C-alpha cells in the first residue's frame, strides 16, 4: 500500500506528466473549461425561467418532474445517445466528444439549478411580498429587492450542487475521446495501470472538493443578508 502511494507521488514528480497534450495542466484546463461552459449554458436556460415561475408562484409540477428526470436520466447514457448524433453533423470544428459531453452536462446541471431557484423564490414569506407590494414597490422591485436577496442562499446552493455534479461527471468525456481528467482513468484502465487510474480519480476528487468549498465560501460572501442572518443566529433561543 505504501509502495503504491510512493508510485503515485513519483507520478506527480515526473516532469513529463506536466507538459504536452496529456499533461496535467492541459487536461485540467480542458476539464474546467468544459465544466464552466456547461454550467453557464445551464444557468442561462434554467435560472430565468425558475425565477419567473417562482415569482408567479406557478409551475410546481414542472419543478417536480425536473427533479425526477434529473435523477433518473444517466449522464453516461445521454452522452452515448448524443455522441453518434453529433457525429452525423460533420460541421463540428470542435474536438470529438465535446458537444455530446456538453449536452449531457447541461441536462445534469439544469434540474438542481431550476428546483433550488424556483423553490427559493416561491417560498419567500408571502407576508413580506405583500408588505413590499403594499409599500408601492413595482413587481420588478419586489423581485429584485425582496425575493431575490432572500432566496439567494438557495439559488447559490443549487448552482453549487450542479457545479459539483458537473465537475465530477465531465470525467466521462474521456470515453468519447475528449480530453479531461478522466483521460487518466480511461488510459489507466486500458493499460491496466492502477497508478494512472488513481491519479485521475484523485485529481477529480480534489477538484470536486475545491468546487464544493469554494462555492460554499462564495455563497456566504455574496449573501446580502449575511450580517442579519448571523445576528439572528446569535439570538438566544
Amino acid at each position, binding site marked *: 500500500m505504501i509502495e503504491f502511494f510512493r508510485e503515485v507521488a513519483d507520478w506527480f514528480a515526473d516532469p513529463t506528466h506536466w507538459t504536452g497534450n496529456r499533461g496535467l495542466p492541459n487536461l485540467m484546463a480542458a476539464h474546467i473549461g468544459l465544466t464552466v461552459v456547461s454550467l453557464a449554458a445551464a444557468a442561462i436556460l434554467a435560472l430565468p425561467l425558475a425565477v419567473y415561475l417562482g415569482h408567479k408562484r406557478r409551475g410546481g409540477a414542472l419543478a417536480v418532474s425536473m427533479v425526477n428526470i434529473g435523477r433518473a*436520466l*444517466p449522464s453516461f447514457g445521454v452522452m*452515448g*445517445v448524443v455522441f453518434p*448524433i453529433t457525429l452525423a453533423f460533420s460541421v463540428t470544428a470542435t474536438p470529438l466528444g465535446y458537444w455530446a459531453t456538453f449536452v449531457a452536462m447541461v441536462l445534469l446541471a439544469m434540474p438542481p439549478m431550476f428546483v433550488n431557484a424556483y423553490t427559493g423564490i416561491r417560498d419567500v414569506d408571502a407576508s413580506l411580498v405583500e408588505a413590499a407590494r403594499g409599500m408601492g414597490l413595482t413587481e420588478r422591485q419586489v423581485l429584485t429587492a425582496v425575493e431575490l436577496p432572500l432566496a439567494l442562499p438557495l439559488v447559490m446552493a443549487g448552482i453549487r450542487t450542479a457545479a*459539483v455534479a458537473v465537475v465530477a461527471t465531465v*470525467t466521462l468525456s474521456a470515453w468519447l475521446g475528449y480530453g479531461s481528467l478522466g483521460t487518466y482513468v480511461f488510459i489507466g484502465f486500458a493499460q491496466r495501470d*492502477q497508478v494512472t487510474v*488513481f491519479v485521475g*480519480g484523485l485529481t477529480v476528487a480534489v477538484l470536486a472538493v475545491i468546487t464544493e468549498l469554494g462555492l460554499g465560501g462564495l455563497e456566504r460572501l455574496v449573501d446580502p443578508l449575511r450580517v442579519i442572518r448571523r445576528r439572528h443566529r446569535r439570538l438566544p433561543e
Partner: protein
Amino acid sequence: MTIDWAWIGDHLGDIWQATREHFLYTVIAVSFGLLISFALALVALRWPRTYGPITWVTGVLYTIPSIALFTFLVPVFGLTSILTAQVALVSYTLLILIRNIVAGIRGVPDHVVEASRGMGMTERRIFLDVQLPLAMPAIIAGIRVAAVTTVGLVTLTVIIGAGGYGLFILRGIGRRFLTEALVGTVAAVLMAVVIDRALVALERAATPWARRRRPA
C-alpha cells in the same frame, strides 16, 4: 440517424441478461446500504451526539465523485472486481438513507410516543410498533431516492468492467451506434421509473391508515 429495430430484435437475450445484472447490482447496493444505514441511524438515535459525525463522514463519501471512488477502491479490490463497484454504490446510498430514517423517527409526534408509554408499552415495542411504522413514509422516500440514483450510477460500473446497461452505452459509444446506446439509456430510465413506482406501491401497502377512507 435512425433506430435499428432489427438489432434490438436480435439482441433481446442480451438486453434481458443486462436487465438482470443491472437490477441485481441495484438491489444488492440498496439492500446493504439500507442495512448499514439502519444500524448507523439507530446509533444516532440512541446517542444524538454521534449524528453530526455520522452525517459528516457519509457526506464526504457522498461528495467524492463516483468515478473517483471507483478508482480509489481499485488498489484495494483490483481493477475489475464486483466489490469495487458495490462498495462505491453502497457508500452513495448511506447519507440519503440515514437522514431519512433519523428524520422519520424523530418526526413521530411526542404525544404519540407518550401515549404509547402511558399504555404500558416497552421502549422496544414503541419503536417497532409505533415509531417505525409512522416513520415508514420518510424511510421509503429515502429508499426511492437512493434506488433511482443507484440505477443511474450502475451504468457507470461498466468502466470498471462490470455489466448491466452501461455495457450497451459503452459499446454504442465505441461503435458510434445510436441504437445500442439508446437501448441502454432508455432501459436504465425505465428501470428507475419501475422501481420508483414499485416503492410507492410498497409505501401505500405499508401505511394502510394513510389511505383516505371513502365516505360511507
